[in-house]
Every structure is written in structure tokens, then in C-alpha cells.
């Protein structure tokens, strides 16, 4: 898989089989939704091999959630590319992590986190009995963090790419590359919500922070190419000193 996954369960009854159940779930997700796998359901949908009436249940759910997210974000979240192919990965990642956390809840665990590719769902307390502490990676030096967050039962997702020379295009101005913002972190009620809105907000470039500011229950920390950050008005309550 192209994405690192971390699971930590504090509850002492947890065993390797519980963590493996989470990893198996992610493997299932990858095999269904990865656009880089020839045999995945999404690839076969994009090739025309699988028709809409034959989508699996999980695929139907993802398409429905994607449509709802597209409406909520004024179209800035859109799984359709201009070539007519679908890529729902901007929603699937958070949704999968969220589902994985539900698997652990059903197994009876209360204190854990699930992290995949830098997006996180936390539950309960860490092994010191305190709220989980999450750092925001410095996009200019990945060995450093630039913010330390203290969160309880929330999801945290970071959108962005740390590529020099990255070109992200505003769909209304395709000739003009967006290079202003490098990293955008959203704190939401869960990681599914945080991820889909972080994805949409990043596509809005510097206006993304405004979108999140106007979204009740969400906070955001946005870093631009000049190492300046903007934060939503309720963000600092999560930033431990």
C-alpha cells in the first residue's frame, strides 16, 4: 500500500489479532478503491467494466457521500476528473479510518488511535491517561512539528503536498497554478468529516480557511508557502502551550 498506517490501542485487553483486523480492513479498502490497482472495483468502474447498478454496497455509500460533500462544498470536492474518471480517495481515506475506529469500538476498546497517511481518529486517552497529543508536521522540515494539539474524541486531517514546484489548479483558472498554500489541517468531530472538508478546503487555496471558519464544529490551521499560518477563530483551544 502506498500509505503508512498506525494503530495504537491502550486498553490492556488488546491483542495482535485486533490490530490485524484493522489492517485487514485497510487492505480491503485499498483493493476496492485504489485507482492504482488494475483489479480494484474503482478501476473497473472507470474502465466501464462495472456499471452503476452493479456497484458494491461500500462503493454506493462512497458515491453517495461524495455527492453530498460536493454539494456542501460548492463543488470544490468532486470525485470526477475532467476525463470522466472517478477518484474518491479524498473521501475514502477519512471514511476508512473512521470505519476502522468503529471496528475497534465494537471490539470493546475505548482508548486508541488509528492513523493513516497523516490523518487521525483518536478515542479516549493516551497511555498517560491524558487526551491524545497530536503534532502538525512542519511542511518545510518533516522532522519538526509546528503545533501541538490536545484533542478528545476528534478527527484530525491534513491536506497538502510538500512538493517543490507542485501545481494545483483552480478549476476556474486552469492556466494559473495555485501555489499559495502548502498544508491545511482540519480538526473535526471525526476523521471522515475532517478529511473530506480538508480535501475541499485545500482545493479552495487561501479561501479554504474561510470555508472552515464558517463550518460549525470545525477548526483549521493553514500554512502558506512563506511559512505563515492562518487559523480559524476557535482553533487555539486545541493548541496546548
Amino acid at each position: 500500500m502506498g500509505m503508512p498506517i498506525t494503530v495504537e490501542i491502550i486498553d490492556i485487553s488488546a491483542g495482535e489479532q485486533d490490530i490485524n483486523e484493522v489492517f485487514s480492513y485497510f487492505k480491503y479498502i485499498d483493493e476496492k478503491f485504489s485507482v492504482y490497482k488494475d483489479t480494484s472495483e474503482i478501476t473497473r468502474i472507470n474502465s466501464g467494466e462495472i456499471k452503476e447498478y452493479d456497484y458494491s454496497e461500500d462503493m454506493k455509500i462512497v458515491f453517495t457521500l461524495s455527492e453530498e460533500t460536493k454539494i456542501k462544498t460548492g463543488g470544490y470536492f468532486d470525485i470526477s476528473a475532467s476525463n470522466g474518471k472517478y477518484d474518491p480517495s479524498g473521501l475514502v481515506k477519512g471514511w476508512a479510518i473512521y470505519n476502522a475506529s468503529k471496528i475497534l469500538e465494537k471490539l470493546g476498546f475505548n482508548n486508541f488511535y488509528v492513523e493513516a497517511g497523516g490523518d487521525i481518529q483518536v478515542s479516549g486517552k493516551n497511555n498517560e491517561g491524558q487526551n491524545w497529543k497530536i503534532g502538525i508536521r512542519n511542511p518545510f522540515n518533516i522532522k519538526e512539528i509546528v503545533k501541538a494539539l490536545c484533542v478528545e474524541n476528534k478527527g484530525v486531517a491534513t491536506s497538502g503536498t510538500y512538493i517543490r514546484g507542485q501545481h494545483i489548479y483552480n478549476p476556474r483558472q486552469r492556466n494559473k497554478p495555485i501555489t499559495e498554500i502548502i498544508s491545511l489541517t482540519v480538526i473535526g468531530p471525526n476523521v471522515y468529516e475532517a478529511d473530506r472538508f480538508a480535501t475541499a478546503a485545500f482545493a479552495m487555496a487561501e479561501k479554504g480557511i474561510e470555508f472552515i471558519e464558517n463550518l460549525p464544529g470545525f477548526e483549521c490551521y493553514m500554512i502558506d508557502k512563506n511559512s505563515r499560518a492562518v487559523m480559524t477563530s476557535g482553533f487555539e483551544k486545541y493548541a496546548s502551550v
Partner: protein
Amino acid sequence: MLRKFFLSFFLILIFAFYVLFQNDRAEDKGAVFQASNKNKPVISTPDLSSNAPSKSSSPITPSQESQAPKSNSLKIFKDGEFIGNIVDAYYGNVQVKAVIQDGRIIDTRFLDHPHQRDTSVAINDYAMPILKTEAIQAQNAQVDIVSGATFTSYAFQESLADALIQAKN
């Protein structure tokens, strides 16, 4: 899990090579690159004043960077352009080209990188309060987990490592 091991190994390899050829002496300066650490990373660096990596975490000092290798036999890398393999960065592919001159990496270029998904329609015009801004600063805090757009970084390192292996003398 195995993939994580190889990524960590390549990252350490890059930095080991980089330190070695920046330094005329044969001994390794003990450069250690801490790959993304899931167990309470402790990061201790001075405040950021620019985009450059802070000196305490980088093994390269300015005086070392200005030293040129004395002879071809000390060069770790051959001169030229070396293209790394294509690496799945989850959101797309990454492929890196390393340009080596006088045994040093003088440039890295992206031959392929993830493209933003197409979107459509305008964003509503909101009335905005003034939001707080700040210069980002490295924190010394101990955290349990780190959030970041990591895939592309790992993919970049992996593709670069592959290019450097080809460049190795």
C-alpha cells in the same frame, strides 16, 4: 510493515551518503535521520527563522558544504542525471531526478507528481472575521501522533533514494 522498514532504510541511506560525500574525512559523522516516529517523537529545535532546515537537526554545516571533494576517488556519486523509480504516493505517482555535479547533489526535480483532482463551481463569498496569523515555529512539545500530508514526502524520498543508488560510484 516491510515497506516501512525499507523506507526508513532508504532515508537513513540518503543521509549517510550525503554526510559522507560532504565530508572529506572517511569517518561517518553519525548523521541520523529520524523517519516519522509513531512513538512519541521528541523534537527539539530552535525557532524557525527561514525555510531552511535548522542547524541542530541537519548534519551539514556551512563550512562542510563549501568543501569540494579533493579527487574522483573520494566521490560517493558519479556526475550526471539519475532518475529514480516511480513511487506510488497514494494520491498519484512521484518520480524524482537527481542531478549530481562534482560528486554532490545540486538539484532534484520532479518528473511526476500528484495532480490536484479536478473540481468545479465557485465558492460562496463569506463575510470574514479577521483571523489570527503567525509565523510557524518549531515546537519542543512531546506528542503522541503527527498529522501531515506525508505520502508525497515518503514517495519523494523513496524515488530519490533509488536515483542515488544508481548514482553511486
